[in-house]
């Protein structure tokens, strides 16, 4: 099918919507990466089998969709149109769901979600706190469509924004609308998207390039991945609209090679868009031409930095360069280039469709719209959440996230990826937006949120992130390369209880050199994990340095494992589990840990059911 005008696209949509109305109930099975890992493919297959057995293939549709976000509870199955929400569904459950829910309209209680706070069983997706506190502007479509079906996207209104823009909106007006919407770059920079587009449009030089940055590399972050996997057409449509506004005919998606499903679904989407006349020459008969090439990254974190990404696209070593001349003027192949992140592009169709005035109503004064976060760590409901800008961190972690795992105490939340910072309890009421997080010593980054409980050592956390950056620094400039080496060394010393209080002054001096002297944002923000933990958890550093103690019981050189005699029942479980054979003691007798042999691996603590292991 090749659509040759926006009217043809509208007609196709009406036709598809009519067809769908006549249609039947739908079993949507989440097939995002999390659910795939939980075995959703077998669940879909079991549904297919069960429908066949009941001769319902014609009446009931199975839809494998992109990520719904509630990864903790996967595989997820939502029965539409009712919206009945089943979680942790196993292939064996498919038969029962078909027989009871589909045929008799009965709800299967054991597959429902129980709210851990109220202990209530919840039947419908819309009632689950994880979902009903979210505002799913960008992710909302994920649960309703098969990402490999362009018809699904069109049915839900997809490509209509593009159709309207191509025939009736001047490129300058598109840019004005995006400017007015207040959209800021979701990849971490937070720069005004509209202003970036305007500069690129005005820049001298042809051709101009459009780039989508899908080199998401922050530990624990998978927002962009899930968008590309679950709704690739939204990103593609955003890019085409951007290309039209800027005057570009060549686009690139630079995507991590470690995201095979994203690459696959994106390629399917691009092929379908070309087939439908939505991409390529003479889009929708408008005379405007634009196409997109997919380029897969080589696994370097730094290639998420715009200039390093462009170097990599050009086939060079992925190292950043100075941006004194902006990439909107001199970017890819030294031509004007607009680079936006996946989530930023995915916002564009919505802004054009619903208008900047509508979009501006969501969010705070200077941060408009929603932000998708990857909520991970010691929190009950891990997954992807999309919330309006300005929502307090507390609501994300405790209402949507369902609080801290195992009822432990909250200690810190790390935002903004490895170069972000750790915020303490006192910061939980801060509204989440670009500027507030930066003021608090962290940053929005691309949207990672790692929750930590009271068993987390902040020196250890800082060391972890510095080690990550140490391995990912490109090594081009001295402050980042050598600074990270030294910073890591200093943190190692602290975690061994070595070094004096002067070490902290040394760290702060070094961090300042790195912040001021590094070439790119990776090096300039690399001190953040250290500076933010020093700002909010200085006592913990001092405990390591002065008292040679790790209060959280993590830093191996400073802790000892021992048995609490009153609690030990002599069950031998820890003795058997200890890989170092450091535990002695006969059955029914109090055990003993030999500190000389003990490697502080923590396995005994994890396996003991009687709280009989003491770490101090």
């Amino acid at each position, binding site marked *: 099918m090749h659509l040759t005008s926006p009217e043809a696209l509208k007609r196709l949509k009406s036709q598809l919507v009519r067809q769908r109305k006549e249609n039947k109930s739908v079993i949507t099975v989440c097939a995002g990466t999390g659910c795939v890992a939980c075995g959703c493919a077998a669940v879909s297959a079991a549904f297919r089998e069960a429908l066949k057995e009941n001769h319902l293939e014609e009446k009931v549709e199975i839809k494998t969709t992109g990520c719904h976000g509630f990864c903790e509870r996967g595989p997820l199955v939502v029965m539409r149109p009712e919206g009945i929400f089943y979680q942790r569904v196993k292939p064996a459950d498919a038969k029962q769901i078909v027989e009871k829910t589909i045929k008799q309209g009965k709800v299967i209680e054991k597959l429902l979600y129980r709210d851990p706070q109220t202990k209530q069983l919840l039947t419908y997706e819309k009632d689950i706190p994880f979902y009903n506190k979210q505002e799913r502007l960008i992710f909302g479509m994920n649960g309703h469509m098969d990402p490999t079906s362009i018809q699904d996207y069109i049915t839900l209104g997809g490509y209509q924004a593009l159709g309207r823009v191509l025939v009736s909106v001047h490129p300058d007006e598109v840019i004005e609308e995006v400017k007015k919407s207040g959209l800021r770059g979701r990849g971490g920079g937070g720069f005004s998207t509209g202003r970036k587009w305007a500069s690129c449009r005005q820049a001298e030089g042809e051709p101009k390039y459009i780039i989508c940055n899908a080199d998401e590399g922050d530990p624990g972050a998978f927002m962009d991945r899930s968008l590309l996997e679950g709704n690739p057409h939204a990103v593609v449509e955003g890019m085409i609209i951007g290309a039209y506004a800027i005057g570009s005919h060549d686009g690139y998606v630079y995507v991590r090679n470690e995201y095979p499903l994203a690459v696959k679904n994106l390629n399917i989407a691009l092929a379908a868009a070309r087939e439908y006349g939505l991409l390529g020459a003479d889009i929708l008969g408008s005379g405007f031409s634009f196409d997109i090439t997919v380029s897969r990254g080589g696994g370097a974190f730094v290639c998420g930095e715009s200039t390093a990404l462009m170097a990599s696209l050009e086939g060079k070593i992925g190292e950043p360069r100075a941006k004194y001349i902006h990439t909107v003027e001199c970017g890819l192949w030294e031509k004007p280039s607009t680079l936006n992140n996946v989530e930023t592009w995915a916002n564009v169709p919505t802004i054009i469709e619903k208008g900047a005035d509508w979009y501006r109503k969501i969010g705070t004064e200077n941060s408009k719209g929603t932000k998708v976060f990857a909520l991970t760590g010691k929190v009950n409901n891990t997954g992807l959440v999309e919330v309006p800008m300005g929502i307090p961190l507390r609501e994300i972690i405790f209402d949507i996230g369902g609080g801290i795992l195992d009822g432990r105490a909250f200690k810190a939340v790390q935002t903004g990826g490895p170069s972000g910072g750790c915020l303490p309890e006192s910061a939980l009421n801060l509204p989440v937006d670009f500027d507030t997080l930066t003021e608090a010593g962290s940053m929005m980054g691309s949207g990672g949120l790692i929750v930590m409980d009271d068993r987390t050592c902040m020196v250890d956390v800082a060391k972890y992130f510095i080690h990550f950056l140490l391995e990912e620094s490109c090594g081009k400039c*001295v*402050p980042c390369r050598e600074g990270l080496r030294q910073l890591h060394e200093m943190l190692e010393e602290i975690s061994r209880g070595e070094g004096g209080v002067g070490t902290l002054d*040394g760290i702060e001096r070094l961090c300042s050199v790195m912040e001021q002297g590094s070439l790119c944002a990776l090096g300039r923000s690399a001190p953040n994990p250290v500076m933010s933990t020093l700002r909010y958890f200085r006592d913990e550093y001092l405990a390591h340095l002065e008292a040679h103690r790790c209060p959280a019981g993590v830093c191996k050189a400073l802790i000892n494992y021992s048995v609490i005699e009153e609690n030990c029942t002599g069950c031998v479980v820890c003795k058997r589990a200890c890989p170092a054979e450091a535990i002695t003691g006969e059955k029914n007798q109090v055990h003993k840990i030999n500190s000389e042999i003990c490697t502080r691996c923590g396995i005994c603590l994890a396996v003991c059911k009687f709280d009989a292991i003491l770490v101090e």
Partner: protein
Amino acid sequence: MQLTIDKRSVVARKGEYLLEVAQRNGIEIPALCHHPAVEPWGGCRLCMVEITHPDWKGWTGLVTACLYPVQDGLIVSTDTKKVHQVRAGVLDLLLARCPGSSLIQNLARQYGIEETSFTPRKAPDLCILCGLCIRICEKIGASAISSIGRGVEKLVSVPYETVATAACVGCLSCANICPTGAIAFSESEHCRTIWSRNFELVRCEECKAVIGTPEQLEHFARRSGLDRSYFTKCDSCRNREAAARFVRVTF
């Protein structure tokens, strides 16, 4: 256009960078990864200067002079407290990386650093990873060496860290441009060894001084379009001959 560097008014052309303008005017800015033969790179971060502009409402910024394009009215300070701090920090870090480099020791001393305050690298060499060798090798059209790995593991070497491939012409450009003398080579009567590869030596027909390797002269002849026979004498002998010809013509 006009700008001010350390309170001195200087003239610059559009497209120039701050460092070259400063150098032309005799204003010293230290730099380790900069060389006029190759494109500026911005890796060593030593040429940091502080800039501001009458239109910037008091805002100042630290930038690398080697890469910052000149701008009319720009006010550049090459020796402020901030500049000093970053340069001293960079040199302190480099001294920990290459404690044996006399160049780094001397520069560090100028910034009041006798000994590094950091942990010196275990088994240090003299390479500061300024990238000059790689860039000059690329510039002469050989691209025989490159950086390998990234971050703290990064090093400069030939492919697979073994012996130079046929891409290397043994010209010594890399070794000669290296500011710290980190690239080892040796020369005996007939043989030059660099990057673990042996090259024959060609000597000047007149004075027998070394003029290069056959591969190098071949490469230069090809790149310059000059006849191979041009590369049979050393520069001084060729100059002497030209001078003699000039004397005959004139007098």
